[in-house]
């Protein structure tokens, strides 16, 4: 029911605080086939709410697909950095495609340092069908 999703716009997930840990970074770099020890551009994906835990999503379709991701970089991340974030459900539209009707949901997550400095802004488009 698209109405339940529309009513849920504005939902926020639980706040979280994460530390860029060297061992976690090494696992991630290995998993994406990368070498080196710098924080790669998509590392904050590890701190996203995937698949989204939005309760209202259960009312529409039976599965998730990823429609797209946008990362905006405002400051570098290094091992030892602490970042805080909280996913926010910002919009939904219902569409008709070749594979039928689906809902396109948009989530925004800002990753900030504890003092408030914006580091990465992520916009995710997720499909529910």
């Amino acid at each position, binding site marked *: 029911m698209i109405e339940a999703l529309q009513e849920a716009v504005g939902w926020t997930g639980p706040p979280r605080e994460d530390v860029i840990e060297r061992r976690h970074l090494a696992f991630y770099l290995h998993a994406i086939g990368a070498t080196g020890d710098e924080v*790669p*551009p*998509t590392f904050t994906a*590890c701190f996203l709410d995937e*698949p989204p835990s939005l309760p209202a999503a259960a009312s529409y379709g039976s599965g998730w697909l990823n429609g797209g*991701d*946008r990362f905006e970089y405002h400051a570098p991340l290094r091992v030892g950095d602490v970042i805080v974030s909280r996913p926010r459900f910002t919009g939904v539209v219902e569409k008709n495609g070749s594979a039928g009707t689906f809902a396109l949901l948009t989530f925004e997550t800002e990753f900030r340092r504890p003092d408030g400095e914006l580091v990465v802004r992520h916009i995710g488009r997720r499909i529910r069908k």
Partner: protein
Amino acid sequence: MTDIPPLADIPPLTETTTLRRLVEYAGASGDFYGMHYDLDFARSLGHPELAVHGLLKAAYLGRLVTEWLDGRGRLAVLEVSYRGMDFRDRAHTCRGRVVSAAANRAELELWGEDDTGRRTTLGRAEVIYDEEPSP
């Protein structure tokens, strides 16, 4: 001055995502959606095989750009749109080119192809060079 002409092609990057890598990525990223490692679950959703995480394909495109930049600058924006699914054990090739450059900034067109040449992943990036490229 760096030497990066407009319309320059970026060296391609090919990765074949195995089940092991799907599981490693799920563990590292925390995305344990069953479509990526549970074949019965993937088939219950109508997919023929285990799908590669979209964000793993985004990570490959991020690598394409940062390995090409090789310390000459940094990413300002990375944007990816998933237009088709990719499945395990099939080669996925990331490609890109510089489509415009002004002062110390450039815009890149990016895409990922499956092993039939179909562009399953479209993207773009904005980069900022540490030094202004030579004309």
